């Protein structure tokens, strides 16, 4: 077992849930609310130095009763260690975990993808938008188990939406603030922008 697991157990007795080893890889389960503190400790402490964030993703089991898991794969390049950190989000409660973006800049797109695919909100992420799906995508979160393989909408509905799409929806509100693009917008879009809205939300 990775020695970091025992140190986490001592240091975060409340947040630490359990640790297990599967195929030589250590997984530490922590309380979702404490993720940022745990990761900050793992990143900053001299004995740990998990300076590299490999991946952020989530797992939903086929048994829909089981909680959804958010997974962080951390690497310590100086100590050549690998640690999997998990937080379980029970079904029914809002799917929110703290963002680790303040610690790892690389978490930016990984968290956006996780939000896009699972609908998990990363609290504290500066720009949590859809990334692989377009911003106006209405069908839900594709990698959830209740999402059918073919998508939620019928083919004709998908086609109708594609044909009805506004040309300016290709640009986010954020981008339309550049140059004169704003002046050329329809009145209602300008008003929405003034209210701080983004396209598709």
């Amino acid at each position: 077992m990775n020695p970091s697991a025992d140190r986490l157990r001592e240091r975060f007795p409340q947040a630490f849930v359990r640790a297990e080893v599967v195929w030589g890889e250590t997984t530490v389960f922590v309380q979702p609310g404490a993720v940022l503190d745990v990761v900050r400790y793992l990143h900053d402490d001299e004995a740990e130095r998990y300076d590299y964030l490999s991946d952020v993703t989530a797992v939903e089991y086929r048994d829909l009763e089981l909680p959804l898991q958010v997974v962080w794969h951390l690497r310590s390049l100086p100590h050549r260690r690998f640690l999997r950190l998990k937080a379980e989000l029970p079904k029914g409660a809002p799917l929110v975990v703290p963002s680790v973006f303040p610690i790892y800049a690389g978490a930016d797109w990984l968290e956006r993808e996780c939000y896009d695919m699972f609908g998990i909100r990363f609290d504290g992420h500066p720009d949590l938008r859809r990334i692989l799906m377009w911003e106006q995508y209405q069908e839900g979160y594709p990698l959830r188990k209740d999402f059918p393989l073919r998508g939620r909408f019928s083919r004709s509905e998908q086609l109708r939406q594609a044909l009805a799409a506004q040309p300016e929806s290709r640009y986010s509100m954020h981008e339309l603030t550049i140059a004169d693009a704003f002046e050329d917008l329809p009145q209602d879009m300008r008003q929405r922008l003034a209210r701080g809205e983004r396209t598709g939300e």
Partner: protein
Amino acid sequence: MAKRTVEVALSTSGLDAEGRPQRTPLLVDEGGRVTTLEPPPAIEPELEGEHMLINIGPQHPATHGVLRLVLELDGETVVRCIPHVGYLHCGFEKIGEYRQYNQIIPWTDREDYLNSPGNNIAFALGAERLFGVEITPRCTVLRVIAMELSRIMSHLVWLGTTCIDIGAFTPFLWSFQERERIYTLLEQWIGARLTTTLTRVGGMAADIPDGWMDGLRDFIRTFPKTIAEVDRMVTRNGIWVGRTIGIGAMGPEEAVNAGLSGPMLRASGVAYDVRKDFPYLDYETYDFDVPVGTQGDVYDRFLVRMEELRQSVRILEQAVARLPDGPLNVDDARLILPPKTKATSEMESMIHHFKQVMEGPRPPIGETYVAVESPKGEKGYYFVSDGTPKPVRWRIRPPSYVNLSAIPKLVEGHLLSDVIAINASIDIVMGEIDR
């Protein structure tokens, strides 16, 4: 040093009131060398400070696929860059949850399609750890050969297209010629060129044919000459150096924090190579160096990839020398199909074959994350199994996705033309980014 100002007729771009060419003052030092040119008068002074929105892609040849960049420009300088990805999203991970393990391997061809054998092997390594099987020594060495060939293949495409982006055409032809030779070798081995589907869980789809090693030896012998030729042509080339040095630089701490991997990270001076730090396929027993840059700019990334080509040849030489005889696939009835002749003549083998194909092998309950050093960086596959023949979750950790996420920082403050060079230096494959 005293400086004197002389007036030199520079061009006929502007005429003065009397119809003569405008004279522009030049600073000339005592040695007679022109040192500084005063800035030409602003052509359209009223545009100063006003920003412009430029949209590059998704159908633009220099974005290496369907990448879209929205740029905010101040004159020619990039103020802000907003990348958009997802135009090629096909839901590989979702489809993988509805497929048996061996049926997913063709999908891995299609994500990073310049590195298909490498993806097949990475996938097989992950699935094998999930099943708990040890592959045979012959399979291990053959996989190292395929892995390094695929690294060379991918780096050659990178080299050729980047040279085209920056304005050199000949290296593109040379590198694609060499790449064609690897494709021929792969075609002889597996029958396919681009989408190889080379591995199966527990082994390979096929053993190498007779005489294949001679073709590989021939490639290993002649390929370094091509690298040397490209090196002579490009590395000290004034245009190349001018376009790449100091462009898109990133320091080591920042690069690690941004999650960069592969040549991108090593160019910034961090010697993180999965083959050395978290070895797989017995890479720790091969003798090779990990090239590391100092500046982390486009030029360093080019140098690192060029050196990796040479190091891959070194690994190939060692792998060819040590390739053992023996069985190719694991002796595990859970995973490997019975021979076709037995399946058509014996009842038990036929049932076994039928069950294997229709239901698929069942891994134990568990999960694993396996990372390999792909040409783009740390390529990881994360599997979660609940004991059924299909994975609960199959996650790809795409190196070029994370590398690309740093592009807004890399291009900030550079010129519009440098955006193309920086984007090329990241070595993105949109199939892998969008999946």
